[in-house]
């Protein structure tokens, strides 16, 4: 502060208005723009929900809960049920988790606890590259490489391994009484376009996200606990189990995120799943998923109830992914709070 000038009031600058105005304007603009962005996102979510409910209204009122108990999806006879598609989504997701989760956790353990530094980085990077491959490219590979291989080799072998495994299914006698019936886990000729193929392609697609998150949570396992266990004479695997146990909530969250991805994934699945509206215990039966029927038939829905039923499927799909995602967020925030 030079002594030749009077003291300016604290909080104002001697160089005057223009620059100060600009800086204030910048504050307000960025603040405002961010706020509008947030409002827009919330609005879009609400609008999507509103549109889905509005679109599905006719089906909601006319079909109601029967939608969830009807297996057939036949626009010609105006029969609409989401059961087969929910089953397809559920079964393919289950198969995907069955193969994808152990693989992902194994890779994460390799990256965090086995690989020398010169390997851990590249492997980590390659796994993340898998996430960048477009869904349709997986589908193309599935349809032209995996499905033929399954049809010619994989499923023949699997048939011989699993041919005596029976599940149970609900069936109906001719007198309309329901009962349990045995159902083969593998049945019929291998087609390569079936629940198994849909599940396997999903398994590959969910590995990157589960691996990445599992790796991050395993890295949070404290060195003190690692040393504590090793100092007591724990083997590598015993210590690894301790680490997995320590990180179990985070790993569970990772699995849920992978599950959400599997539920919503569309393109690759419809290219290998066979696109049939049926509930079958056999892994070799063709099926369809909720997202699959939407992608396949959105151009064909030419009368109001058909279109409305499509919206109904979309609503069911959105709610199920939303619920799994919210579950994952809650679990992950839980582990963050603990650390």
């Amino acid at each position, binding site marked *: 502060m030079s002594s030749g000038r009077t003291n300016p009031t604290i909080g104002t600058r001697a160089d005057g208005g223009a620059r100060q105005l600009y800086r204030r304007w910048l504050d307000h603009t960025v603040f405002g723009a961010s706020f509008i962005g947030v409002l827009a996102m919330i609005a879009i979510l609400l609008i999507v929900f509103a549109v889905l409910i509005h679109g599905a209204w006719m089906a909601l009122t006319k079909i109601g809960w029967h939608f969830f108990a009807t297996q057939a999806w036949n626009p010609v006879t105006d029969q609409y049920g989401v059961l087969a598609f929910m089953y397809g989504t559920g079964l393919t997701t289950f198969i995907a988790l069955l193969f994808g989760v152990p693989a992902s956790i194994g890779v994460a353990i390799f990256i965090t606890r086995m690989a020398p530094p010169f390997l851990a980085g590249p492997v980590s990077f390659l796994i993340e590259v898998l996430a960048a491959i477009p869904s349709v490219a997986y589908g193309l590979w599935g349809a032209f490489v995996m499905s033929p291989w399954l049809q010619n080799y994989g499923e023949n072998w699997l048939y011989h391994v699993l041919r005596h495994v029976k599940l149970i299914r609900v069936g109906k006698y001719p007198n309309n009484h329901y009962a349990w019936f045995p159902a083969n886990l593998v049945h019929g000729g291998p087609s390569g376009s079936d629940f198994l193929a849909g599940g396997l392609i999903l398994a590959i697609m969910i590995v990157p996200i589960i691996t990445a998150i599992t790796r991050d949570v395993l890295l949070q396992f404290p060195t003190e606990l690692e*040393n504590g*266990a090793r*100092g*007591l*004479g724990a083997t590598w695997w015993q210590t690894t189990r*301790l680490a997995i146990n320590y990180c179990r909530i985070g790993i569970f969250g990772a699995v849920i995120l992978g599950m959400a991805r599997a539920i919503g994934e569309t393109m690759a699945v419809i290219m290998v799943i066979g696109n049939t509206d049926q509930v079958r215990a056999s892994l070799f039966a063709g099926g369809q998923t909720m997202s699959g029927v939407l992608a396949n038939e959105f151009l064909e829905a030419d009368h109001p109830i058909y279109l409305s039923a499509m919206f109904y499927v979309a609503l069911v799909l959105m709610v199920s992914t939303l619920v799994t995602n919210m579950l994952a967020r809650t679990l992950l925030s839980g582990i963050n709070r603990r650390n």
Partner: protein
Amino acid sequence: MDSRFAVNRQVGAVVNTQDLSENAHDNHHIRRPAIQMRGVEVYYGKGRAVHGVDLDVNSRQVTAFIGPSGCGKSTILRCMNRMNDLIRGCRVRGSIQIHGADIYDRRTDVMELRKRTGMVFQKPNPFPKTIFENVAYPLRIHGIRGRTQVADKVHQSLRMAGLWDEVKDRLHTSALALSGGQQQRLCIARAIAIDPDVLLMDEPCSALDPIATKTIEGLISDLSRTLTVVVVTHNMHQAMRVAHQTAFFFMGNLVESGPTDRIFNNPTQPQTLAYVTGQFG
């Protein structure tokens, strides 16, 4: 490997029976050393952290390792249960024998070695499990499954660690709710639950308040009746209070070792004198 240690343990046991028949503190000179180090050198990558250490650690006594930060005392401690194996680029030369068995021998079972040499760390590191499960963990990983066997051992270890009265009513609550001093005693209970011959303590009190420190020091003295204790400390007064023997390390060298009394009152090396009189460090 099991039998190898078992045999050596018996040899130690025979010697120790003799010790117990006389005054244990006065005749340490006739003991067989529990740990013998000859020409031990430790390298981290290309740098040498420890230069040719020759040291005997007496059985059933407390030996303190003192010296300024970075002098190699913790590194030496971590050689004794081969925790240095876990550090990439760490190599150990020379020979270390515990009860006559060369622990860096190719055939040594490292897990069995660590079972025989418990370790307590600077920062209390209980597992995020219950108090009971923390002490039961080493038993379980070494294959002890019987319910009563595990429970008896857990209770006994907690008593030995002086923690029993404080936690007996909440054995099945989280260990993380204990105070720092209690957590450290829990870690000691965990380390002694599998009956080690040797207890290695790496600055066990440096994260604790004076009262908790006093408790742990009393515990160290008690434990040394049945165990060989090696304690790394930066606190010279602690060494004076608890240790029968003291070894002074400086810049990766063992400068001097001997009875604690002599090291502090009548050291032969000028560096030791300078350190124990507080001229550096």
